């Protein structure tokens, strides 16, 4: 794509706060064979499917009106900085978080950032897919949910089918599936819950949760409240993840900021409104924390005589989970591929891509790891009982990536102020400082033993979490760096059009 092509494309569209001057001065961005495969709305939907769903809605409904505060504060200190900073970086540099941190800090830190993003997915899939298995069981045969073999088989079969679709379809297919999944499984059921909630109030029923000013803030209980508020900073992680696919857009400089703004609005709406609607209809005494989203939806639907809709809602929610699953499958592993090739940080075996340009060997190896984890999670009680600790460790490791992201963004503004960017985030240094401090706080609060740890020794918990972060966040990437060979480096090709 030539410079004039870049400037002339979409001349009728006014970019959202785009820096026209710097965009006009931009050197031609490498044209990807995959360019145009993903529209900006599809990428926004992929981002939404990575970050938000209805799954946490019943848990958050317990907090009633305070759930608005619990989501708005992290939105200010984490979501907005992440979205705006990612928008600026993605419209200036290809390659997602690896490239940004590589440019802003160092190639080794770029590798670390990509690894920290990827590491989170290792333990994520078994829990997400066991939710899919339980949701299907809830409708078809509730007893199945108690069967570990059923759960293990479902996790493994669904994972490999999703992997097959990712390998065969490439990013174009993933984008379409993710968009459809979010629409069917999150936006429509979420909107239905909100409409039913409003109808409930319009019928003259009092809200089950008090909606008065003195319930805006969660009840103060000292350290537990701090843990509650700061832990939720993590609610918006994943906003930056799909920037790795920016080359698949027709005009990333103009389109990616729009992607981030649309995703930001949708994520806020999806996370805040459905829990609020549930809290209007169902008293907190009925929203047991142990009850999942299907039970909460059943209760709301039952209130309106719509219980017959539950199977349809169940399938819709499964679709949304699968959309998030394939999006996560294709994103961080793509970053790892770029790292492997560009920096030569991974052996050539892991750099192999198929005809659709998909990182097949990384995904297949990840498939085997997930299969083992799924078997352990579903069949070994000691593992399933402790699985929440693995999740805590990996979420902290993922937060490390945000530290590097904000440092890199800050430094790039200082070091390369004239580098063309399609969008310049307002007050970027402030955004970086706020986002960095929020991420640091969220990492720190991860060391406070939560309810699941019971009366265990707090220092043991600190040692477990600290040791896990050290192993997964430092020792493994350091070992990969140490084992690196110069001849592993390979040219980075863009995604190959699958269609």
């Amino acid at each position, binding site marked *: 794509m030539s410079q004039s092509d870049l400037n002339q494309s979409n001349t009728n569209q006014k970019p959202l706060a785009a820096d026209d001057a710097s965009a006009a001065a931009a050197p031609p961005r490498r044209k990807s064979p995959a360019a145009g495969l993903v529209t900006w709305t599809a990428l926004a939907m992929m981002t939404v*499917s990575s*970050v938000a*769903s209805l799954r*946490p809605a019943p*848990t958050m409904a317990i907090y009633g009106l305070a759930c608005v505060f619990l989501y708005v504060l992290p939105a200010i200190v984490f979501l907005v900085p992440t979205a705006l900073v990612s928008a600026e970086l993605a419209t200036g540099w290809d390659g997602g978080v690896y490239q940004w941190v590589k440019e802003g800090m160092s190639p080794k830190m770029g590798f670390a950032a990509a690894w920290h993003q990827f590491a989170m997915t290792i333990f*994520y899939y078994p829990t997400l897919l*066991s939710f899919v298995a339980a949701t299907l069981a*809830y*409708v078809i045969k*509730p*007893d199945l*949910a*108690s069967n570990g073999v059923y*759960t293990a088989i479902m996790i493994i079969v669904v994972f490999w089918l999703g992997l097959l*679709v990712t390998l*065969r379809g490439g990013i*174009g297919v993933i984008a379409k599936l993710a968009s459809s999944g979010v629409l069917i499984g999150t936006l429509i059921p979420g909107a239905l819950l909100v409409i039913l909630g409003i109808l409930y109030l319009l019928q003259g029923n009092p809200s089950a949760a008090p909606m008065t000013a003195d319930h805006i803030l969660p*009840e103060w209980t000292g350290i*537990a409240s701090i*843990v*509650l508020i700061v832990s*939720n900073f*993590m*609610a918006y*992680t*994943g906003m930056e993840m799909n920037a790795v696919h920016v080359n698949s857009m027709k005009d990333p400089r103009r389109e990616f900021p729009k992607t981030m703004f649309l995703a930001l609005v949708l994520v806020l709406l999806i996370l805040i409104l459905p829990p609020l609607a549930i809290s209007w209809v169902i*008293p907190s*005494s*009925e929203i*047991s*924390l*142990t*009850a999942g989203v299907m039970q909460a939806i*059943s*209760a709301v639907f*039952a*209130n309106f005589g719509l219980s*017959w809709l539950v*199977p*349809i809602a169940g*399938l819709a929610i*499964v679709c949304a989970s699968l959309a998030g699953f394939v999006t*996560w499958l294709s994103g961080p592993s793509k970053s790892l591929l770029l790292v492997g090739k560009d920096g030569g940080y991974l052996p050539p075996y892991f750099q192999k891509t198929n005809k659709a340009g998909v990182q097949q060997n990384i995904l297949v190896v990840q498939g085997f790891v997930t299969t083992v984890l799924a078997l352990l*999670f579903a069949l070994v*009680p000691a*593992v399933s*009982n*402790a699985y929440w600790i693995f*999740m*805590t460790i990996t979420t902290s490791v993922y937060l490390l990536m945000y530290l590097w992201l904000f440092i890199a963004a800050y430094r790039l503004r200082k070091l390369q102020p004239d580098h063309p960017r399609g969008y310049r985030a307002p007050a970027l240094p402030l955004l970086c400082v706020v986002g960095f401090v929020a991420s640091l706080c*969220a990492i720190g609060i*991860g060391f406070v*033993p*939560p*309810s*699941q*740890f*019971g*009366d265990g020794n707090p220092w043991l918990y600190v040692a477990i979490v600290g040791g896990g972060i050290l192993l997964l966040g430092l020792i493994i990437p350091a070992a990969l760096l140490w084992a690196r060979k110069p001849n592993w480096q390979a040219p980075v090709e863009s995604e190959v059009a699958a*269609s």
Partner: protein
Amino acid sequence: MSNRAIYMTIGGVLAALLVVMLVTWNYHKSNAEALDKANQLISSAQAAGLPAPNNPQRVADTLGTDGGEICAALRSDQQVGYLKTRIGVGGEYGFRPIILLNRAPYEGAALIAKTYCPTEAAQAEQLINSLKYARNS
């Protein structure tokens, strides 16, 4: 396999699942036995001094005669493990554990176990007692 074939295969699988789900869903959860158990649950909650659900019909529609998700989960170590990963706050992907305010929500779950699946009541008690709370009451 072309993209069209991928979409058609996925669409076909989902359509088949939808038919299975529509056929197998229990449309008559709220029968006389379910209502009876819902009333028992509400009475138990009131007797225990817990905030009681105020709509027996909705409880019957939701929990049926088998106790729904809670009883199904209590029968499986894996599902209890999954529940532990969901005690917290966050979004879809970024979800972290917290310190629960008090036992109240779980006491309700224990009553569900006692009413609908008494063989799992001990498992419910064990789960509740294994957790730490910001307040003891």
